[in-house]
Structure formats: C-alpha cells, structure tokens
C-alpha cells in the first residue's frame, strides 16, 4: 500500500459516511427516503401503474376476467417497460446499438484470427448440437410470454445470444452472417418506430396502445405490448450476438 491507496481509502470512507447519512430514515432530510420495507406505495406515482389506469378513476382488475384495462399485460414490469415508459426503452435500445457499433468500430473488421486454436471435443460438439435448438426455443418462449410471466425481450434475447455463444465455443470456424444481423436489427428498430407513429396517428400520442387489449392473462392480449417486446427481443438478441462475434473474431 502506497500513499495513494491510503488517501483513496480515506476518501471512500468519507463518501460512504455521507451516503449512509442520506439513507438514514430517522432523520427528516427532505429526501423522502423511507426505511427499508416501509415504503407507502400510494405516495409514489406508480400506484396508477398498479391500477393500470393513469387517465381515469382506479378500477378493480381480476385475472382472467377483466377486459380492456389501459395496459392489458398481467406483468406490471412489462406494462411499464413496453407501454408506459416505452420511449425510455426506445432510447435504451438505441444506446445498446451505439455501444455495439462502437465496439465493432474500435475492434476493426479483420475476421482472420479466431480465439480458439482447435475445435472443442466430440462430447461438447454433440452436446451443443442438442442444446442449441432447445436454448433457442427457450428464448423464443421467454420472449412471447413476456406479458404473462417473468421474462420478456431482454431476457429472451440474452438467452438467444447465449445459445449462439455455445456455437462459437464448439466450432472454431463458426461465423455469423453479419448482413443478416444488420437486416434483423434495422427491421426491429424501424418497426418499433412505425408502431409508435401509428399510435401517434390514430390516438394522438406516440406509442399508444392502439390494438384491442383482450382479457387480461390470456396469450393474445395486451394490444401492442407483445409485438413491441418481440421486436425488442430480436434487437437485443442480434446486438448481443454481434458483440460476442466481434469480440471472438477480432
């Protein structure tokens, strides 16, 4: 440990003391941070999200019975990501795209030296041959059921990227078709924007839920939310696969 280390330790301890003061719920510090677990949900705006009705009075929702609430997905996290704050999600996948493009720009495009000297063993090859379609199917299942169960586009896209990572681990000459990846990404992004613009045209605000909502809790429900989540899944899967492919073949 040199002098710089002790100085950093001192600074970090001072900063930690200040942050702990800010989170102390017994002091009235004007930050409205309650004690752990004592949050009153009605003091936060998200109580409207819980009632799935921001514009009108709150209603009661019953699983498998209620028809046409404002955002018809049974998973509240999905209805926030893909409906109430879908503009944030659009910005987020833009950030993801910029990071992937920056990685490809920095690493360059010489697809010559592979990361691995030889193929994996026979057992791994056979295992990947069985596991790859199963993992791909699991990813698609997670994406499609994003509005009913935990999961959705981000998780399913990451599962699909993991399946492609397994292919890279098994075969040293495995290459992804980068043109196809680009087409998939562009298709997903443009369709997201077009769905938002259709909402702007029909109901007067960007990314409105303009399709019929259906009964809450069934597979064909929640209007545009499953479509948006499928597009997010395609985009996230393509971009994470592209990142992995660029890192391996750099």
């Amino acid at each position, binding site marked *: 440990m040199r002098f710089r280390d002790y100085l950093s330790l001192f600074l970090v301890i001072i900063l930690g003391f200040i942050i702990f003061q800010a989170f102390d719920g017994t002091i009235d510090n004007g930050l409205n941070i309650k004690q752990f677990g004592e949050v009153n949900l009605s003091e936060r705006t998200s109580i409207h999200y819980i009632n799935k009705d921001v514009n009108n009075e709150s209603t009661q929702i019953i699983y498998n019975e209620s028809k046409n609430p404002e955002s018809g997905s049974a998973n509240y996290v999905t209805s926030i990501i893909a409906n109430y704050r879908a503009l944030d999600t659009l910005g987020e996948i833009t950030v993801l795209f910029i990071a992937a493009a920056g990685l490809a720009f920095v690493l360059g495009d010489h697809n010559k030296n592979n990361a691995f000297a030889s*193929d*994996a*063993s*026979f*057992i*791994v*090859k056979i*295992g990947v041959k*069985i*596991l790859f379609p*199963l993992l791909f199917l699991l990813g698609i299942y997670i994406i499609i059921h994003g509005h009913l169960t935990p999961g959705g586009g981000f998780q399913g896209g990451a599962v699909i990227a993991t399946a492609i990572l397994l292919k890279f681990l098994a075969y040293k000459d495995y290459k992804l078709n980068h043109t196809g990846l680009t087409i998939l990404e562009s298709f997903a992004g443009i369709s997201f924007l077009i769905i938002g613009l259709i909402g702007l045209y029909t109901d007067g605000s960007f990314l409105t839920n303009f399709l019929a909502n259906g009964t809450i809790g069934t597979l064909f429900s929640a209007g545009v939310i499953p479509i948006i989540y499928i597009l997010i899944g395609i985009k996230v899967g393509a971009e994470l696969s592209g990142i992995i492919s660029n890192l391996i073949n750099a």
Partner: protein
Amino acid sequence: MILLTTLGYIMIILGSLFLLLGALGIVRMPDLYNRIQAGTKATTLGALSSIIGVGLVNPNWFFKTLIIAIFIVLTNPIGSHSIARSSYKSGLKPELQSEIDEYKPENIQDERSDLR
C-alpha cells in the same frame, strides 16, 4: 395428494443429502480430477432429485421442473468434461500418479482426431 407431497419432501431431503455428499467430496478429495468426479456426479443427482421433489410438492410446476431437469442432465456432464479436458491440456498432473494414461495423444489408437 398427501402421498405426492410426502414423496416430494422425501425426494428434496434425499437431494440435499446428495448435495452435502458432493460438497464433502470437494473438500475431502486430493486433486482436481477427483474433485470433479465427486462434484459432478453427486451434484447432478442431488439437483435432479430436489427439483423433481419440488415438482411433486407443487404439481402445477411439474412440467417446468421436468424441463429444468432435462437441462441439468444435458449441461452438467458436458461442463465438467470441458473443465477436466482443459485442465489436462494445460498440464495439470493428477495427485496420485498412475501407470496408464489413456488420454495421451500417442496412446490413442483411433485415427479420428475429434474423438479426443
């Protein structure tokens, strides 16, 4: 119904016993290859039986637990095989030297190189 629940709890207890045995094996065994053997075999059986036990206790989840069990059966042996192979290739010697080393490249009679 009570029968299924009892069976499920028995399987969970059995599975955790196998997991405990696997952990003991990892502490007790002398080198990496023995540890992989203890860790993988006992852990696969333990995780499998406890997951099936969960599916029996709550029958709504049975098919999902079956899918998880299939994934464990497929991935766990492949992973431990890769670990053992890469540690052999990077030159880790076993603790107890044995005379026969069938995995050496000159000892393999078969011409197909991808069987190694």
